[in-house]
């Protein structure tokens, strides 16, 4: 499945998107974030402060407890600073 990163999350992870294959017991986006954090030191740094990470499932905001399927477009990014 595909995961997107934006802004400083992308800088820390090192890529704008990657294809990953999480195990079946990873059911929520919060669990996915914790699992992604183990992939590399960069990932660990990106996800170090869960309060500073926002998530979208299929381009809608999602809380940590929100479930996902492997067909979904998942994105992680910092709090927005537009406008």
């Amino acid at each position, binding site marked *: 499945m595909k995961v997107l990163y*934006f*802004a400083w999350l992308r800088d820390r992870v090192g890529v704008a998107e990657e294809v990953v294959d999480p195990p079946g017991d990873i059911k929520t986006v919060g669990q996915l974030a914790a699992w992604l954090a183990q992939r590399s030191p960069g990932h660990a740094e990106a996800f170090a402060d869960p309060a500073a990470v926002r998530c979208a499932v299929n*381009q809608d905001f999602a809380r940590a407890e929100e479930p996902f399927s492997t067909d979904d477009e998942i994105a992680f990014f910092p709090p927005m600073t537009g*406008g």
Partner: protein
Amino acid sequence: MIKVQAEDFDMGAELEALSQGRQNVGAVASFLGLVRDVAGPGELSAMTLEHYPGMTEKQLERLEAEALERWPLDRVLIIHRHGRLEPGDRIVLCAATSAHRQAAFEACAFLMDWLKTKAPFWKLEEVGGQANWVEAKETDDEAAARWNENKQH
């Protein structure tokens, strides 16, 4: 109407088009956001606005629909640029038109408050050769929360 674009826009022409031929529009409230020179005089600075293509448009269309539902408006306009911008450059234009001024003013302030916290844009500031991601402001969350009597997403 929602426009997400790298190109600059002509504010006069955009606002003109909003009320053109709409004879019950008495009020056009608008807000223009410009890049400030955060470095201070003399120092070069710039900013790059990153966004999440697709999600941006989806969230802004939702925001437009929400404003049209909350206030008796005729039209809503949101233009948000992305890419590299320099001090004085236009970033964002929000506008709301209505028969009456109060609805137009409130809707325009609402659009900006939500845009700051709900539209997937991120500012990377360059000052004196250093690039830093701008941190989200608590005051922006508070400003957006003012409108949050009902459930929002």
